[in-house]
């Protein structure tokens, strides 16, 4: 019997009004950057979407000064209730313009529209809505005596969830009374710049949010700026360590949300079909460009063959292609550089002796693509079991006992997340206690919520984002 084929179901781009070039957003206005412009492309087609200004050191300085002035003259004097109302406004505008944001996000990032539409943008709005309510209730948040803002916060976010990461950063910072200078990733700056328009529509006082686009040198200028009181960074562990070193010996605070190599652990009594869905969601959601991705599958030996068979059968149904097609499951790899890294690590997986399989799906001619890939026969010393691949690549290892599963799961310098699949309640709770990970998903995976703290153990970083805990890094307390 032949397969039912899907007809293309593309989401229209017409809702997005792309400009040919974008400036920086400083003190409530778009201004030209003094650095060279750079191009933001669609990773699905390599089409140039827009030119974006690169913020120089002087531009960052102007942004920090604008944030300081806004902090001193306006934002720190405003009541929490009024700050909250601005955040509520932003949340509402994001909901109103959700489709526009979703389409732009999928264009610029390459992620499937069903994910940007159903996950990234609704969650971003929800983060603003959630934090808005905290703004006038900080005294009730058990943060310590007399909670108050640090001042100006520098925020550097990655390309995997551009708008969602922006919301994770800006919403709690503003709710607690800080002003911000935010740098989106160089490959995905466009939704952050659209967000600047939202700030204008919300009549947010100028300088409370400043957005500076650029790459590593722009980020470095933020990190090193003496006018920054606190940093919040999401990205690689390597850059996180550089930031931790850069602020050593100063009084700058930092929250670091870094890499991961999560174990997704499947016991022999797990509901296999649900577990397979969880495994797929764990590593192929957002092309595997997820710091908490379940990139190491630990499966109990007795069911390893069955899981392998069912998993591969499921992966053969994944639809890889046009991010704007509503039926697409796996979109484009975000950049050439990231694709190169994935290729290099998967090549290492093969050369080190693991067995490679992919779903053999056709790939578009243009753009950056990688087939959903599974490695079996992986050992703990293989690079693909130790290093973060940040792509649609699953490494499968096996275990016999719960103790062995814990030992293997924790055998990594990372500690961001973990998954457990079993029907036995007491085992879930025991495993959850043993795993050195900031987020543990039991019989589910990759779930996020504004009320739920997120962040890692060990080299996955420090500080939490989301929930009451997510406010803590943005306030100082005491006399």
């Amino acid at each position, binding site marked *: 019997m032949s397969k039912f084929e899907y007809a293309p179901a593309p989401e229209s781009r017409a809702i997005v009004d792309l400009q040919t070039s974008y400036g920086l957003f400083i003190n409530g206005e778009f201004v030209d950057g003094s650095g060279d412009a750079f191009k933001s492309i669609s990773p699905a087609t390599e089409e140039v979407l827009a030119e974006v200004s690169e913020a120089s050191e002087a531009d960052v300085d102007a942004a920090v000064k604008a944030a300081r002035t806004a902090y001193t003259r306006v934002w720190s004097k405003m009541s929490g209730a009024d700050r909250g109302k601005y955040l509520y406004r932003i949340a509402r505008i994001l909901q109103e313009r959700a489709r526009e944001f979703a389409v732009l996000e999928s264009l610029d990032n390459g992620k499937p529209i069903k994910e940007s539409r159903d996950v990234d943008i609704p969650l971003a709005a929800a983060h603003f809505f959630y934090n808005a309510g905290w703004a006038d209730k900080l005294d009730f948040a058990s943060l310590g005596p007399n909670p108050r803002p640090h001042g100006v916060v520098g925020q550097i976010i990655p390309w995997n969830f551009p708008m969602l990461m922006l919301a994770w950063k800006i919403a709690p910072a503003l709710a607690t009374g800080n002003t911000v200078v935010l740098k989106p990733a160089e490959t995905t700056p466009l939704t952050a710049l659209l967000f600047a328009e939202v700030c204008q529509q919300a009549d947010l006082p100028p300088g409370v949010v400043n957005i500076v686009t650029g790459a590593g040198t722009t980020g470095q200028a933020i990190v090193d700026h003496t006018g920054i009181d606190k940093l919040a960074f999401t990205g690689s562990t390597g850059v996180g360590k550089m930031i931790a070193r850069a602020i*050593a010996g100063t009084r700058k605070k930092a929250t670091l949300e870094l890499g991961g190599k999560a174990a997704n652990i499947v016991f022999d009594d797990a509901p296999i079909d649900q577990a397979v869905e969880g495994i797929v969601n764990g590593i192929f959601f957002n092309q595997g460009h997820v710091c908490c991705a379940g990139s190491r599958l630990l499966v109990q030996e007795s069911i390893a063959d069955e899981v392998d068979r069912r998993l591969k059968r499921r992966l053969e149904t994944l639809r890889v292609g046009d991010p704007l097609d509503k039926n697409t499951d796996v979109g484009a790899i975000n950049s050439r550089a990231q694709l190169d890294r994935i290729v290099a690590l998967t090549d290492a997986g093969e050369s080190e002796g693991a067995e490679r399989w992919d779903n053999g799906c056709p790939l578009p001619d243009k753009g950056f693509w990688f087939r959903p890939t599974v490695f079996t026969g992986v050992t703990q010393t293989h690079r693909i079991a130790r290093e973060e691949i940040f792509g649609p690549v699953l490494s499968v290892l096996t275990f016999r006992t719960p103790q062995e599963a814990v030992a293997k799961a924790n055998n990594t310098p990372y500690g961001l997340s973990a998954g457990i699949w079993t029907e036995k309640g007491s085992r879930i709770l025991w495993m959850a206690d043993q795993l050195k990970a900031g987020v543990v998903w039991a019989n589910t995976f990759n779930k996020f919520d504004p009320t739920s*703290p997120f962040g890692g153990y060990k080299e996955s970083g420090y500080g939490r984002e989301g929930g009451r805990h997510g406010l803590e890094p943005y306030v100082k307390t005491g006399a």
Partner: protein
Amino acid sequence: MSRVDVKKTYKLYIGGKFPRSESGRSYEVYAAPSGRSRSAAPKFLANAALGSRKDARDAVTAARAAQPGWASATAYNRGQVLYRVAEVMESRRPQLVQEVRDAEGLTPAAAESVVSQAIDRWVWYAGWSDKYVQVLGGLNPVAGPYFNISASEPTGVVAVLAPQESSLLGLVSVIAPVIVSGNAVVVVTSAERPLPAITLSECLATSDVPGGVVNIITGKAAEIAPWLASHRDVNAIDLAGAAGADGVDWGALEEASADNIKRVLRPAGDGADAVEPDWTQTPDLSRLTAFLETKTVWHPKGR
């Protein structure tokens, strides 16, 4: 004729045992000048062990081995153990008062007060053992059919530079908040005032604190701290004792700590200055929370 008294040998405290420094080194410890003795020649107190890099590494190994067991003890049990430390200190009050007098040059009344506060601080933190998790965590009302809960866990092995000035109250104020949650600790004592720390370790050893949960190294922070800051099996570091420590650059220690993303508790003070806080102030939870991790667990709800 008066009796010739038996003097105590002050050694290190590692893994529940009292070894000399593996380096074989010791250094002379003198009483702080005070009152009428201010102009007299300094009074020799003891030869303390001069801890080494290797001692610090041994201490980390002992701490790592002890930490999981201590963390898995019930909160009620940890609270009772910390309370027991207060009991044992109370029973050694005269000795502690004399040692604090000698170390810090205090009047008898001031030394009594310091010892009282140090004992009371154990009681204060003991009471937190089964409460901070409730205060800091709880159910998160996520928008979906999920049970979602956040709870605090100890971060693991913590290195602590103990205060240079406050040899007992400051010391207790940095150790108790670290271990109450189930962390294990490696402490580098005040360089010039190390003796009360060793007497405290004798209290710990007789208080059901499992061997290796608290490890105490006497000596110089400038020599030992860099090895702890760069140690890959240390999860966090408290730099309180950088204030007033000879040759210690806390910024350099923080920089070395970045190698494995250690949690760093900076010394008090502004800018590059490190100052020793007033340990007589009632503490808040910040020294406790600095060495906690938040773990959030999700599970679907369904019939």
